[in-house]
């Protein structure tokens, strides 16, 4: 009898304590920032938060692995189970809108930006990407640019590439010259499949132009148009100058080819810039960059954002967090560490290196377009289906077949195909 009472007591205490913890003054931040500069940047944000709110206990619910695939899966389970974190990292755009906003699981937070007077401190285009039916649902913290070519300056001068090529013909011309000299023209590492779509979406952007490209996602532009077909043809031509073992390489391996002087250039988001710096190169010294030819007037956005889930356990602290990361101070602490640029236009440029300055300039002035493969333009099912189609294309090089496939995928996902 005594034993029984004791165990009842024990269970009671345990239950009470978990309730107590739940009501604790805490903030749970969910992300997949677990490596290198990302983790450092996150910790710096936490430190900044503590400066203002020292009594709040920060719970770092980061999930490692799979470039976010694991984290996304865990997040889905939690959201479904009614156990959301206070705020979570999510790519700007459809990754959030389609998954959580449309089913009504997120609170609109336009008012937070209004309260801070920060609505006009972000490019309208990026807030548009983060919006649904006129309300902003997440706040962008950092911005990467996807449509960049990074190249080896030594090889470039060897083949006579003094100026960045403006058109495809020029670019292919230099790729061929590099090939003739025994170099790989364009380094590609599509073992994980997404990089070939990363390349293709910039080609789509080049052939459609930013307005038409944006229209694809608003059901204003039809997928059944020659621009997309031309993009496939250009890609087919470029594939001739791609390293033959691309299927065995990751994007880092491809960047390494440029670093080791085996390849002229690679098309990659500017996290490749951070990678080249860790390898020891300096921007503008050993490597140069330019926008993917044909997309000089556009900035393909890859951005991490944070939102406010309904039923956040510590809503007050979550709002504080969102206000913090929307501030210049936080963005200028986080981004130099991570190697990206702030989403705010009034950042302190002196904190950023020469490449990032170039990027910030373009961010402020060029057309912003959402990336498909990085979760902004379209729901995941569309992105992965397109990724598979392009991946096949890299092998089959069958323009007509892939074009038809793209139209079918667009149709399946409710886009315009007339």
């Amino acid at each position, binding site marked *: 009898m005594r034993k029984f009472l004791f165990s009842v007591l024990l269970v009671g205490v345990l239950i009470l304590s978990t309730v107590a913890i739940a009501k604790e003054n805490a903030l749970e931040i969910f992300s997949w920032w677990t490596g290198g500069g990302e983790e450092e940047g996150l910790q710096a944000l936490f430190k900044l938060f503590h400066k203002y709110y020292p009594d709040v206990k920060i719970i770092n619910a980061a999930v490692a692995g799979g470039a976010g*695939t694991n984290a*996304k*899966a865990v997040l*889905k389970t939690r959201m*479904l189970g009614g156990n959301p974190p206070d705020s979570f990292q999510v790519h700007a755009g459809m990754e959030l809108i*389609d*998954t959580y906003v*449309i*089913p009504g*699981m997120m609170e609109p937070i336009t008012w937070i930006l209004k309260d801070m007077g920060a609505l006009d401190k972000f490019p309208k285009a990026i807030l548009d990407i983060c919006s649904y039916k006129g309300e902003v649902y997440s706040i962008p913290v950092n911005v990467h640019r996807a449509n960049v070519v990074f190249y080896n300056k030594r090889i470039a001068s060897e083949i006579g590439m003094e100026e960045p090529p403006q058109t495809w013909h020029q670019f292919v011309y230099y790729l061929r010259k590099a090939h003739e000299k*025994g170099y*790989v023209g364009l380094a590609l590492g*599509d*073992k*994980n*499949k997404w990089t070939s779509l990363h390349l293709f979406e910039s080609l789509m952007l080049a052939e459609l132009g930013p307005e038409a490209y944006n229209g694809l996602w608003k059901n204003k532009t039809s997928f059944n148009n020659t621009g997309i077909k031309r993009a496939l043809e250009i890609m087919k031509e470029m594939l001739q100058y791609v*390293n*033959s*073992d*691309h*299927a*065995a*390489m990751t994007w880092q391996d491809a960047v390494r080819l440029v670093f080791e002087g*085996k390849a002229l250039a690679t098309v990659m988001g500017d996290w490749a810039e951070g990678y080249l710096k860790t390898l020891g190169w300096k921007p503008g010294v050993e490597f140069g960059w330019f926008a993917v030819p044909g997309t000089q007037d556009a900035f393909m956005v890859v951005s991490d954002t944070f939102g406010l889930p309904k039923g956040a356990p510590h809503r007050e602290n979550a709002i504080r967090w969102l206000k913090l990361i929307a501030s210049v101070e936080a963005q200028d602490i986080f981004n130099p560490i991570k190697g990206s640029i702030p989403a705010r236009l009034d950042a302190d440029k002196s904190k950023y290196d020469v490449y990032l300055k170039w990027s910030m300039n373009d961010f402020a002035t060029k057309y912003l377009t959402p990336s498909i493969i990085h979760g902004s333009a379209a*729901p*995941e*099912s569309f992105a*992965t*289906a397109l990724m*598979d189609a392009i*991946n*096949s294309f*890299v*092998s*089959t090089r069958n323009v007509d077949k892939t074009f038809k496939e793209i139209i079918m995928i667009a149709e399946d996902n409710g886009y315009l195909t007339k």
Partner: protein
Amino acid sequence: MRAKKEIIIGILIALPSIIAIAIFVYGFIFWTVRVSMSNWNSFSALIRGQYHFVGLRNYIRLFQDDRFITDLWNTLFFTLFFLLGSIALGLILAVLVDTGLKGSQLFQNIYLFPMAVAFVVTGTVWGWIFAPGIIPNDPQGVNLLFKQLGLEKLIWGWYTSTDHIGTFNLALIPVIIAAVWQMSGYTMAMYLAGLRSIPQDIEEAARVDGASSWQVFWRIKFPLLKPITFSALIILGHISLKIFDLVFAMTGSGPNFVTDMPSIYMFELTFRSNRYARGSAIAIIMLLMVAVVIIPYLVSSMKEEVRR
């Protein structure tokens, strides 16, 4: 009276396991079948919770899907050559170790060691080994070795190659090599135990009867190893039908899905594309494939029990 009590106690002891299996195995299988016959192919459909029964539509779509058909062929050829390779190599190694020459104990451990390595590690390292490099100027890995040995003719794309013989994708060859490397130690250990359990006088009787070493092996020992061969086929067979981490770590889906497997497709559909119903359908198909292999095994080993 006593017997009845013992029966009741027996049932009570087994009851927690029975309940756990009923829920977590059969319950979940049933649920997966249910999902596979639904329209839950996006996260919002899942959230809205509206379940529409669509019958076998997901299954039919799968069999119209080029990628899935490729997956099935890949599984078939991978399983076939993996089983052949592991059993043949395991048998050869067992016979060699059994000769009892100097150092055979050391070799036995060396051959068995790969089994201790996780498939992910195996896949990653063999992925590096077989990474072809840029042909012809800058070969890497095995290709580099060939070049240095003057065997340039042997250089090819390995798992980046989209070459095929009929529906057999040659890119599977390096994957098969890695898998056989990993598991032939296991078959070797099983065969070694089997060989050692064959009484020596049977071998001697065969020698006196006039059998050469080869004949002793092929006509006496190998037939007596049949139960082990059967066991190995079943165990390796169901591993290879479900193979995921080795292929995922080593090659991913491969160019044009030459090394894609149903498990990888299922993983991507469910956890990347949010197409839960489609992914569940693949899971059920995989379950059926494995059942085809395992059920005869269970039936025959239950018959053995009854006979005893």
